[in-house]
């Protein structure tokens, strides 16, 4: 085999192969870096505590003077909900279930000399729309403890508005989590007392949220038995920038918080940019593959007589193809490893920057990117091996 290699390496152009290696490296690196960058930046958008994932919209009906005066209900009927579910942009629809009972809440910390009570309300959404994951977010019949999620701006309102002007102490999220709430639920026929605690805050959802299990059970126990239409829905969409959403909302006078669409747009542009970058990387990889193909064609062409003679003295096409196949395999492997090393280096640089902007950022690992890299490596190598085999086969058949 050593002699065969000595023979077949004649006419190998270092320049061409270096060109291929470099071009393939650049292409592969762009693809992998684009993919990894997307994943890393994506983690900023889908940080753990944000209630809404990127492609969720909260839908409500517009409230205007006319509807206030006429007392027209701002709730969604069954047919309206079903119609929304049937829209092509809707992946799934969840409804906010309102409470069919009255809620009063007393809270206080005697040590701080702070105590007040208020009337309030509860709403719930199906658990799959709650991306606040916690063991406490559950309710069993017979429990006297109700977990609650509040909008974060309620706390801000208190801390920076109320407490500031009244000279009251500011309360942190951790402290508020320790406060026990005395909750009184007053139904049509009975009144019960419960303990409640705020287990989390949501940036996105403007409601006082309890587990859906509790809501279903409590509505049955305390409610008037009348079915209540929801006034808000959560819509999971495939693409928040879809024009059809805006159009549909306008036609039906629905509305949604604008920043959802804005963030969706940002994500979409990020996807678009990364997509373009990766396409360019793919193109470069494709061209690199083409360069390699051309050099191999040229090489085989120049070495045709040698290959032919090897075949005539009894070497099999496979044995004759093997040196070139091993060569390309080696080159591709080199490119793959170099691309991974460079990826780690470049990633280290931008991660350092991202971490100064988002200190508690949890970035995903390299796993998915490595898998994609392996796929590219395997595909490129397979194409190489096949072409070389094909080329040797034509020499065997003495066809050009």
């Amino acid at each position, binding site marked *: 085999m050593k002699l065969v290699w000595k*023979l077949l390496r004649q006419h190998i152009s270092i320049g061409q192969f270096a060109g291929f290696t470099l071009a393939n490296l650049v292409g592969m690196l762009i693809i992998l870096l684009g993919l990894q960058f997307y994943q890393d930046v994506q983690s900023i958008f889908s940080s753990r505590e944000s209630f809404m994932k990127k492609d969720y919209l909260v839908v409500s009906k517009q409230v205007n003077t006319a509807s206030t005066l006429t007392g027209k209900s701002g709730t969604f009927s069954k047919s309206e909900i079903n119609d929304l579910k049937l829209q092509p942009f809707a992946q799934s629809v969840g409804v906010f279930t309102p409470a069919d009972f009255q809620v009063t809440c007393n809270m206080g910390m005697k040590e701080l000399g702070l105590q007040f009570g208020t009337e309030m309300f509860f709403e719930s959404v199906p658990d799959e729309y709650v991306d606040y994951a916690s063991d406490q977010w559950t309710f069993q019949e017979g429990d006297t403890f109700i977990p609650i999620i509040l909008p974060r701006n309620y706390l801000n309102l208190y801390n920076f508005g109320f407490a500031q002007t009244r000279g009251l102490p500011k309360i942190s999220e951790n402290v508020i989590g320790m406060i026990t709430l005395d909750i009184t639920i007053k139904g049509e026929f009975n009144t019960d007392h419960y303990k409640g605690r705020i287990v989390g805050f949501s940036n996105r959802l403007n409601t006082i949220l309890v587990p859906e299990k509790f809501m279903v059970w409590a509505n049955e126990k305390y409610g008037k038995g009348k079915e209540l239409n929801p006034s808000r829905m959560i819509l999971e969409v495939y693409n928040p920038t879809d024009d059809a959403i805006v159009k549909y909302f306008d036609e039906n006078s629905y509305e949604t918080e604008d920043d959802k669409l804005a963030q969706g747009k940002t994500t979409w542009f990020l996807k678009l940019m990364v997509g373009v970058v990766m396409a360019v990387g793919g193109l470069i990889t494709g061209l690199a593959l083409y360069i390699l193909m051309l050099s191999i064609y040229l090489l085989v062409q120049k070495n045709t007589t040698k290959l032919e003679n090897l075949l005539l003295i009894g*070497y099999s096409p496979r044995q004759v193809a093997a040196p070139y196949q091993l060569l390309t395999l080696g080159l591709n492997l080199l490119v793959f490893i170099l691309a991974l090393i460079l990826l780690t280096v470049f990633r280290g640089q931008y991660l350092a920057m991202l971490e100064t902007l988002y200190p508690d950022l949890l970035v995903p690992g390299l796993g998915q990117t490595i898998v994609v890299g392996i796929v590219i490596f395997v595909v490129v190598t397979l194409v190489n091996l096949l072409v070389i085999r094909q080329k040797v086969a034509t020499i065997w058949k003495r066809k050009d």
Partner: protein
Amino acid sequence: MYQTIKLDNVLPHVFEERRSQMHSDVWLQQLQFQKGQLYLVEAASGTGKSSLCSYIFGYRKDFSGTIAFDDRSINDLKVSDWVNARKSSLSILWQELRLFPELTAWENVMIKNNLTKGFQPVYQLNEWFDLLDIADKKQTVIGRMSFGQQQRVALVRSLCQPFDFLFADEPISHLDDENSRIMGEIMMSEARKQGAGVIVTSIGKHIDLPYDKVLKL
């Protein structure tokens, strides 16, 4: 293992228009080369002597009629069959030698002997190099050797495999009588050792050997 090579009505395409005027012991005949026999195919140049070798080695297919190894037509041979045949049943000393000019004489021999997993022991190869008077050329690149020297290297290479038939296409065209005699001896002793058939072609000058059959092409 092949016992016979059969030619049945074989004619190169280029001779097709002269089909009716063909007077040949080979073309358009029923012919068998038997293992263990020694043949001389005599030909004027341009009568298709090298074509015959190319057909039998599967290098060219521009002929009509049938060539068969034992009773198997060579048209039915698969790639792996050909590889095996060229490695362990048929050996040839091509007229154009088909050596690798970039490699040395010794490397040219070893590239074949390695393929057959050292079929000839190194001392045997050394002995042949000595007998053929090219021992001092072992490390010389083929491209810098005379054609006569190259012919001798090609002979040694052709013996580095088991064979049922050995073809020598004008093996001594550039050799003096003494070297021709030595070449003939080496060739025949190895062929006898292997019990192989030998087919020598010539366009006039030929090795003086006890031929079993002489065919005019």
